[in-house]
């Protein structure tokens, strides 16, 4: 579904991604872990189409198509969803209006007619129940004044509304209390099918108890330095990142 080959990217001359290789197949769940500043959010933003970063080498294909040439909205319509680490507050744009516009844009792309008002509201109700998001939140402006946890839940709500093929969840678990974590994980699992895939970016093994990954990657200084099964998360939880960083120093000094 998603193939990343030797992806390099920089911002203002600073290289942040230094040759990423990653393949995600339909039905898989991948976790990406790694210390702060290693490039996890940069990678996810590039996959979603942020033009702040310059891709200097490598390629990314999604379902066989070159992803890097597409604007963010087309990627979204083709089924890529980014759950933001820091969801953006947009005062004055109502959640309802935002979601109606988004859902209909995606439907238009799939040659489906606009949802009727009542069908749309019904869909909102269902998805709200699925992620147990407070009804009051969806009658407000997008993320405006939402608590940290509410913003994260709202990301999953949007994911539920848009039904993406590939969801990239950037630290959706940060800021969530334990109950919220379970609901969010439950929501994500409910949305999982053999046809779609998920990349979860997280710092905590705990989330992976609920969203069980097939593969875990460790990103460090812009490279994937380790890939393993879910036991890797326990190892990281126990030992931290130092044992991964050590051998890497050599790479740097080459």
């Amino acid at each position, binding site marked *: 579904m998603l193939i990343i080959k030797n992806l390099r990217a920089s911002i203002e001359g600073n290289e942040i991604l230094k040759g990423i290789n990653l393949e995600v197949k339909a039905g898989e769940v991948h976790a990406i872990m790694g210390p702060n500043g290693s490039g996890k959010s940069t990678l996810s933003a590039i996959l*979603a189409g942020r033009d702040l970063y310059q891709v200097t080498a490598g390629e990314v294909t999604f379902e066989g198509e070159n992803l890097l040439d597409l604007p963010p*909205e087309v990627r979204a319509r083709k089924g890529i969803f980014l759950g933001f680490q820091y*969801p953006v507050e*947009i005062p004055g744009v109502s959640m309802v209006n935002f979601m109606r516009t988004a859902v209909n844009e995606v439907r238009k*792309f799939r040659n489906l007619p606009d949802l009727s008002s009542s069908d749309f509201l019904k869909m909102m109700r269902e998805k709200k129940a699925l992620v147990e998001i407070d009804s009051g939140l969806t009658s407000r402006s997008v993320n405006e004044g939402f608590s940290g946890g509410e913003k994260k839940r709202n990301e999953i709500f949007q994911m539920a509304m848009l039904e993406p093929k590939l969801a990239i969840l950037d630290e959706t678990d940060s800021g969530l209390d334990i109950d919220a974590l379970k609901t969010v994980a439950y929501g994500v699992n409910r949305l999982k099918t053999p046809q779609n895939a998920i990349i979860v970016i997280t710092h905590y093994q705990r989330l992976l108890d609920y969203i069980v990954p097939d593969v875990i990657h460790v990103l460090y200084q812009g490279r994937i330095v380790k890939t393993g099964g879910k036991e890797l998360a326990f190892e990281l939880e126990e030992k931290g990142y130092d044992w991964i960083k050590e051998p890497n120093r050599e790479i740097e000094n080459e």
Partner: protein
Amino acid sequence: MSKDDTLQQVTTNLSDWYLSSRDRLTKASSPVFNAPRTEAIDHFRTLGIPGRGNENYLYTDVQKVFSQPYKRHIDPQKIIFSVEDLFHCDIPELDTELILLVNGWFYNNRPPLQILPNGIIYGSLAEAALRYPDMVKSHYTKYADHSTEGLVALNTAFARDGTFIYIPKNGGNEKAFQIVNILLSTEDLFVQHRNLVIVEEGAVARIVVCDHSLSALQYLTNSVTEIYVGKNAELHYYKLQNEHNLSNQFSSSYIHQERDSRVVFNTVSLHGGIVRNNVFVKLNGQGASNETLGLFLADQNQHVDNYTFVDHAEPDCTSSQNFKGVLDDQATGAFTGRILVRQDAQKTEAYQVNNNILLTDEAQMSTRPQLEIYADDVKCSHGATVGQLDENALFYLRTRGIDSREARLLLMHAFGHEILKQVSVKPLQERLEDLVDKRLRGELSRCNNCPVQCET
């Protein structure tokens, strides 16, 4: 000719026009209008049309507007169109007491003054000055100062007609008042109207003003509106400027507020050529509050200049100004917010914000606060921003499948919504939201069922 010479020429021409038409003017008008004429024209000769040297008009090219050859009339011209056919307001639920001005003249399709059973009087100011001279006289020229403002002096010298609204003590009306200013002619036109609103003690009123230009010709309007809001009275005043790009407008509103009165004054500028809005507020009694708001959308070569002056003359008053602008193409805008807190005006609260979005590199905005504070116990804040749309918000919207154009529209609409949401006349608010949306989309934001499709 230099700009100043040209302006001097315009001033001389207008003064000469006064001399040649004085007799006709005086004969046709109430003594209330005639009394200050001579003084006003003398002041106008000295003050002239505000030019480059005038601090308050730094950002607006007044000369460019005034040096066009407009037709000017002392008397109302016969309208060869049927205004009823051309215009009726299509805001469906907006059931209002309607006053129609065509080219600045009260449009005589109904008695020039309506007197409602609840004591409310509204209609033509010329007629009110004849029938209720004392009532008009006690407010006329009391707030708009023709000794310091050239444009007010000019308007006062030639004043003949405009709108009049009187709400008696403790009075109120279920319906809002709607003043529709229509420009409709077969020639380029210079229009001046003079308006007076009296909201007596304890009374409440809502007024909606709609400016439209129906012929694709050049217009210049120099209007003056005096508004008296008595003790504990309340006024909501909304002005919708939806003219075309050849319509230039200088609109001066003078609001005089007594003790514990409340005023909301909101100007939405959708279309126009060169637009200058002056709002002068005098808080003349303790506990009065004033909110002056504005939203302006300008593109192509349009220019919108908002000037506010709030005079805190008494203690315990609150004022806030909130102006927002979206400028596209080569449009230019300006905001000047002057706040004067006099020495005795302790416990004043005065707030001011002006936020602007420039959509292109060529669009320009000038913004300046002017605070003069002579009291020491004062809460005061002001802030201005000139920026672009929030890139992070744009990206966020686009990652949900919304294309860049639509995302921009959502953000612009949200930006303007902050001003529109404060419109308390619901059908008007909905209509404004709709008009702003259409305007931002580049669709003609004219009332849908108006058969005149102005080309610009």
